[in-house]
């Protein structure tokens, strides 16, 4: 159990992590280039998916734009192959870091048979891949939180060096499962990191109608582990907070709750219209803190990526996405009668 001093200290982290130079965190310039590419990929994938939706080729899409900074920044501190990922539907940036390809993502967007997440059974963005360690997610909010605790418990019992990352929105923090999952993780000091992408709305419900506090991170104290607040538009700050939490988890020091203040640029989903609940001014204002722009500036200041390089990357990414879309579009649909499969195991392997 943390004593109040630890708790006090854990709070300061929130401010200390801002604007840390990447070198001190062990990030090389190449790391930053890859991060930059991933951020662009996430953003451009999003825009491409929305275009597919408007063209009538994708009945439903979930935009992530605005969240890329905290998604890619936090996910970057995780280890492919070793760690376990429980993203939520908005986390295109997280699953890209986890290893899902644009082609695989569009197989989901077009609900194709080879969609790795569900073979077209679930809506797009309901991520899952046993191979990549991405745990299948559902629509009901916050149900993955106790799963994350259980996986972390199992990993420790099996003496694995595994850290579990669990992402969710501000809305998720109101659910009973969120409370129960964090409490369990705190009691057993489990190697799990809870990342709240606080975009200040649960669809239309503003934060002020979801909670009477400004920082949901402060609830972590009540579960006996640190809560950290970071600027979700500051990719490196997000990485730093996640890295520290990851180190704590591996050192047996227990969970961390990281709250990333972020914003959603598009409506909740392609079915939503956000004009009734968000002023255009508010949305425009938020875009002035675009994590991609801020990260781009950082790269230029430190002379890692200049304008022309950025354009080159952008062009490559665009080509990659176009190619993924046409390949995914051509892929096979699921067989109608296959709807009857996989209710129960088809062999009895466990």
């Amino acid at each position, binding site marked *: 159990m943390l004593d109040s001093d630890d708790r006090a200290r854990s709070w300061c982290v929130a401010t200390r992590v801002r604007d840390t130079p990447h070198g001190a965190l062990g990030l090389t310039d190449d790391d930053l280039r890859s991060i930059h590419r991933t951020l662009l990929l996430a953003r451009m994938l999003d825009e491409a998916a929305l275009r597919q939706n408007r063209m009538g080729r994708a009945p439903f899409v979930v935009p992530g734009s605005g969240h890329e900074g905290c998604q890619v920044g936090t996910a970057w501190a995780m280890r492919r192959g070793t760690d376990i990922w429980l993203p939520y539907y908005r986390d295109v940036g997280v699953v890209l870091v986890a290893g899902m390809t644009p082609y695989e993502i569009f197989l989901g967007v077009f609900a194709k048979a080879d969609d790795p997440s569900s073979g077209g059974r679930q809506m797009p963005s309901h991520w899952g891949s046993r191979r990549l360690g991405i745990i299948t997610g559902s629509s009901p909010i916050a149900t993955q939180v106790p799963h994350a605790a259980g996986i972390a418990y199992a990993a420790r019992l099996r003496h694995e060096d595994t850290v579990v990352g669990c992402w969710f929105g501000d809305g998720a923090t109101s659910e*009973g499962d969120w409370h129960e999952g964090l409490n369990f993780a705190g009691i057993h000091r489990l190697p799990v990191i809870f990342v709240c992408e606080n975009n200040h709305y649960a669809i239309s419900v503003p934060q002020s109608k979801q909670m009477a506090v400004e920082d949901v991170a402060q609830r972590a104290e009540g579960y006996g582990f640190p809560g950290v607040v970071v600027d979700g538009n500051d990719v490196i700050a997000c990485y730093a907070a996640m890295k520290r939490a990851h180190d704590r988890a591996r050192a047996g020091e227990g969970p961390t709750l990281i709250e990333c203040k972020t914003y959603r640029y598009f409506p909740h989903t392609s079915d939503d219209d956000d004009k009734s609940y968000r002023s255009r001014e508010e949305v425009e204002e938020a875009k002035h803190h675009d994590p991609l722009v801020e990260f781009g500036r950082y790269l230029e200041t430190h002379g890692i990526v200049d304008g022309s390089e950025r354009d080159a990357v952008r062009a490559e990414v665009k080509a990659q996405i176009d190619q993924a879309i046409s390949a995914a579009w051509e892929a096979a649909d699921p067989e109608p009668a296959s709807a009857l499969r996989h209710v129960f195991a088809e062999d009895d392997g466990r």
Partner: protein
Amino acid sequence: MSERNVVTAIREALHDEMAQDERVVLLGEDVGARGGVFRISEGWAAEFGEDRVIDTPLAESAIVGVAIGMALHGLLPVAEIQFADFIHPAFDQIVSEAARIRYRSNGDFGVPLVIRTPCGGGIHGALYHSQSIEAFYAHIPGLKVVMPSTPADAAGLLRSALRDPDPVLFLEHKKTYRAVKGEVPEGAFHTPIGRADVKRAGEDLSVITYGYEVHRCLDAAARLSEEEGVSVEVVDVRTLAPLDTETILASVRRTGKAMIVYEDNRTYGAGAEIAATIAEEAMFDLDAAIVRVGGPDVPAMPFATPLEHFFMEPEPDHLYRRMRELARS
């Protein structure tokens, strides 16, 4: 009389109730500024005040639990669960609390609560925006379960639910919202809870159904009479609990053939109770075995069009064929 679709009929009936009785409050996710994801309460936060049209946190157990508290203290809450698929976190509050408070207090307390939620599939909602939930709730004594299929029934039953002294689960099939239009009587008419309705009279075969399936059955019945001269009676159950066994049995006794159609997965579905009741009460009036047509026994309706279509229609015209088959048997 004037033509309405289901969502408009619900919107107007609920609006009138809120306007007439300030004890009525609406609470749920996104019911305020956004007016609900189906726009049923659009503009109401401004009209009735944010204290009567309450945007709740994302917490279904609290939506129902808080509403129970309101109902215990003089209000007439309407709790909206955004999609029926998300009502499960509130299962305990509904089963252990709302439905048991009168019984456990020996009649001392009552819970006049209406829980509204859009259910059902065929709208490309995938596993978690397509579910049928009536079977879980119809089994709970102390809870009434209503599921209208037409604009008039939706308005009339919603008014009755709001006047009911006990908790009512009001199920709105999403596919009927805009697809189904019909005449709605003017004024604050009531449709009694607990009464089935014969939506089409017939002689050769009784089809017992509810929700959106009513319309698919009516279509098949119409084609059958045109193309085959088969006369099908379509009984809309409307209220699953308490079940109107009288109307159902009367129809079956007359036609001698019973088919029960429901969208939910077949096994242990609500249709089982209807079939069992007929088997107990009218078996010797039947000249064919009872037929149940339910959804496939898979966890929920998949997203991809071919899969969703297979769930709704495993073979082309399957309702038409099954009815014809039974009528001829």
